[in-house]
């Protein structure tokens, strides 16, 4: 008699089929969020605010009440939802361009106000849906369709270290950066996502997780090579770790 040790999370819609490209880590991230929602038993009490970019399709996969925000405004809409329904668990699922470029003001101010929200931000160092342009987290030297000879300081300036910035906001209860490059790190990522929900549920403040993720299509790499890039190029600059956790320090 065999026992099931892995199953598709119940908080995903029935027979869900992702529309992400082959090998894209978005699929893993959405599954982890669903697993956390299952474990916390909050599917019927949660509201998702989806953002613009590949992340917008999340509402087609997660079986929770969902609202779509204009580009960059997910945390403003989430603030509105939470203030209107303080007993609901409200979370955003955003890309780095949405969270840290066009929506940086909304993101920082939600953290500064200490909104009881959870924000999940996928950092894949590019604008994926529009075809791989330079974004706020594009690494120095990285070639994109709008940095054809690589990101240089003269024209583009520096990439932003999101988790560190959010940790500096006094209203932040939890800020972490995790990676999906390996199974071990995927398991750590899930723990961080869970913590970011728990600080909201306990009313402690803003919970944030930045997830280092791949975009094999626009990086023009195999999914496997893409994970090597996360390890060798992204993680030395965007160091995984817990940057703030008011429940332990």
């Amino acid at each position: 008699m065999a026992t099931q040790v892995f199953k598709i999370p119940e908080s995903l819609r029935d027979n869900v089929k992702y529309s992400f490209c082959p090998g894209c880590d978005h699929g893993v991230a959405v599954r982890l969020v669903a697993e956390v929602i299952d474990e916390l038993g909050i599917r019927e009490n949660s509201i998702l605010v989806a953002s613009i970019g590949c992340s917008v399709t999340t509402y087609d996969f997660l079986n929770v009440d969902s609202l779509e925000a204009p580009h960059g405004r997910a945390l403003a809409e989430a603030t509105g939802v939470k203030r209107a329904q303080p007993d609901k668990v409200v979370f955003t699922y955003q890309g780095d361009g949405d969270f840290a470029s066009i929506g940086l003001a909304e993101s920082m101010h939600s953290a500064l106000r200490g909104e009881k929200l959870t924000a999940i931000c996928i950092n894949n160092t590019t604008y994926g849906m529009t075809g791989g342009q330079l974004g706020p987290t594009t690494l120095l030297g990285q070639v994109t369709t709008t940095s054809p000879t690589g990101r240089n300081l003269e024209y583009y300036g520096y990439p932003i270290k999101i988790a560190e910035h959010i940790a500096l906001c006094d209203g932040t209860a939890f800020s972490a950066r995790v990676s999906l490059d390996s199974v071990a790190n995927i398991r750590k990522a899930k723990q961080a996502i869970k913590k970011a929900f728990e600080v909201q549920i306990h009313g402690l403040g803003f919970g944030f997780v930045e997830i280092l993720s791949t975009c094999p299509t626009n990086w023009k790499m195999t999914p496997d090579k893409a994970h090597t890039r996360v390890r060798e190029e992204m993680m030395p600059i965007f160091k995984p770790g817990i940057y703030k956790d008011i429940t332990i320090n």
Partner: protein
Amino acid sequence: MPECLTNKKVLTKGNYAIANAAVLAGCQCYFGYPITPQSEIGEFMSGKMQELKRAYVSAESELAAINMVIGATSTGVKAMTSSSSCAVALMQEGLSYATADELPVVLVSVMRGGPGLGNIYPSQGDYFQATKGGGNGDYKLIVLAPSTVQECVDLTYKAFYLAHKYKNPTVLLADGLLGQMMEPVEFYDYPYPEIDNSKWALTGAKGRDGRIIRSYAPLADNQCVFLEKLFQKYKTIEENETEWEEINTEDADIVLVSFGSTSRNVKTAMKLLREKGLKVGFFRPITLFPFPTKRLAELSKTAKKFVTVEVNMGQMVNDVRLAVNGACPVELINKGVGAPPSAQEIVSRIEAL
């Protein structure tokens, strides 16, 4: 700051009247960013909403404010923001999304001079902004234009009602004059029925699949179906909700058309012109969308001329011309910005026509 009292006449500013009416209408959430000449609305709300344990957020920008309203209304509650001209410009994206999401957003727009930063004098320069929209795509906002402080109260109640009845963003289009002037006004209990939002609001997917409020329609056919449905709704709104005031129009040779605070002097001018024996009528659209096109077309069969009076470079005059459709001339009396032309000035300009 005035006391919120119902069933009692008080002397108060338009901005306070609007804010107080919103509270009485059951507005649960206010989100805003300061801008003259409407800052009193946010000031009043910051105290009152906290006192009543309702939601208030000093938003980081108008972009954030309108999106907070979208978030709050997506859960079915009454919520609003208020702003003015160059800052309402920042909200156009959110208003476009809110129409596509079919959410009952209420925006109080207190017009000031433009374009650009312009100035803080009264203006009607955002007639186009409100009725034609600056957001992308095919959509309409319901637009209500008060002309007195009392009407600021009446139409604030109505804005919440229509927004929820039709699940469409609704604008109360006032101006710096109405916002800042004091008049006696009477508050009363919210006179409209509460709308049941339980079929669509996001309240957590208890015992059901998750609902999605979205505007993203990847397939062209789906978008066509949605737009047809949206514009069928606008047709219903035009049939049911078009509102205007008209005086002495039956026998009028000249019909003066004006909205908002400007219409007050126009009404006086009409009376003065009547005293002089001229057959002049007065027509005031109260809803700017839906615009009283049909009624103006009917009047164009008997009137010889229409004259619109506006504090802008001529905006509503275009809609009057479309309604009249060449049946008779439509002239414009206007000034760019500031206090409306006086009744005497309007009289002499009509006489000079």
